[in-house]
């Protein structure tokens, strides 16, 4: 957490002017790629598409593990101390997703698969708890934020989920740190995902965040990038690359 928050006195002034330029670049780029004809459904760009290289075809167990560890993070963020993180994560997940397809797949797990999942989730939670440290209640912590941004008159939809966000856009200095949690090892795609989080957050709030980070509970590695103009420009290129790829395949 100290890495993400940084030294408060060394934070740069909040950049509130960059968002309009980024949006214009994205709109122009999308129009060049998609054309002016309005699509029936928008082309959706998600974090998973940017992480394509290091996201192997995941099993149901891997998906469940990811979902449950994110719920464990939500509990940790509000200071919930648990002796059994797996049961608590399942209880909270059930409270939000009672009847989804994934819940049905969870119910269908046999004893062996369930035992493996339990062990996996406990191991990830132990790594997470050890690395995360205490989170102060004054840090404006928010979890599991679903964020979306429409581009080029609704032709493209940027859809993102930030697992944990702290700081606020109301201070004169940049203070928002974005934190993404993954249960897979970090790879080249993780950097693109980090940039994507920063870009969508900038477009949504019209204020660039301070930092964007990703933590792997599989390896205990944390990647953290300071958000600056260059990073946001690269994020724009990443998004346009995905749009170009999707246009070709569709």
């Amino acid at each position: 957490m100290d890495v993400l928050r940084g030294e408060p006195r060394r934070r740069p002034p909040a950049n509130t002017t960059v968002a309009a330029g980024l949006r214009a670049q994205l709109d122009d780029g999308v129009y060049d790629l998609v054309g002016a004809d309005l699509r029936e459904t928008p082309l959706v760009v998600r974090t998973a598409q940017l992480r394509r290289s290091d996201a192997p075809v995941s099993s149901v167990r891997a998906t469940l593990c990811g979902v449950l560890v994110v719920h464990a993070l939500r509990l940790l963020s509000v200071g919930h101390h648990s002796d059994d993180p797996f049961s608590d994560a399942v209880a909270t997940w059930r409270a939000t997703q009672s009847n989804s397809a994934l819940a049905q797949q969870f119910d269908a797990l046999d004893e062996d698969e369930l035992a493996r999942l339990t062990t996996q989730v406990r191991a990830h939670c132990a790594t997470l708890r050890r690395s995360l440290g205490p989170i102060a209640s004054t840090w404006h912590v928010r979890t599991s934020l679903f964020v979306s941004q429409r581009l080029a008159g609704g032709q493209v939809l940027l859809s993102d989920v930030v697992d944990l966000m702290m700081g606020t856009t109301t201070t004169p200095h940049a203070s928002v740190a974005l934190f993404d949690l993954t249960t897979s090892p970090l790879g080249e795609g993780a950097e693109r995902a980090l940039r994507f989080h920063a870009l969508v957050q900038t477009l949504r709030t019209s204020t660039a965040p301070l930092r964007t980070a990703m933590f792997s509970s599989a390896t205990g590695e944390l990647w953290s990038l300071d958000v600056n103009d260059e990073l946001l420009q690269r994020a724009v290129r990443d998004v346009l690359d995905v749009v170009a790829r999707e246009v070709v395949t569709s």
Partner: protein
Amino acid sequence: MTTLVHRRYSSHVLARVIDEAPTHAPTLTDAHRKNLSARFRAVPAAAHRTIDAWTVERGGHTSSDFRWTPSAARRTIGNAAARRVLAAPTRATHDAVRDEIDELLARAATGYARPGSLASWLAECAPAVLSLVLSDATNWTTQLLEASHGLSGPFEIARADAYYDVARARTTLRGRRDLIVATESSRVLLRVRAGAPGKSAGPGLRADLTVDALADVEGHAAARIVGLWPDAGVLLCVDATMEDLRAGARDLVRAAVATRRHQLRRAA
């Protein structure tokens, strides 16, 4: 022609939208209320019905039986916690939400909570689910307080939604509002929503505005309603012209008709 305006959200834009609200807002008279009541009475109701902006936006489709979930509880707890923070600005958001949950739990423990109420549900929740409620409500309170940060005029977190019982029509109208900003001659309502606005977001806001005017004892409408979707970084606003209020009332009646039609279809 209605007055729906779409803007990208930032605290400056929100403050400007509120500062630039019309100075004059119309007033609903007894004749308007009688007219509305007659229209609702013309739509038979098998049981008492509640119509709100959500019913309007969903074209009369009512969802299945309501049950409390962390996301359903976040607005009630989050708004109450925001009031606590405004009363004691040194209090951290997260601590204010925890205080609010503790108070609801105490109410349930002392037998003051009705069955089916939020307090009763919280009392039955596992500790982990209570923590999730805390997390969800903290998200809500933080974004509401962020929205209120740049406001220049005096404001308050709404203590309750607006309710209006339509006379002899077995109908209650509900208008949601989260923040009320006092302007020189009127007030502006702010409603915070999750997700992104759909095509029917405008009619939804108009319905909230109309119910708020009906719930006012003297029928004074708020000058403007602002719908804020922080997740999408968008805000929409509707001014209280008489035309907009009429359109809002028409949408509410249409929703009652559509709900009735769906009920008959289900029964057949």
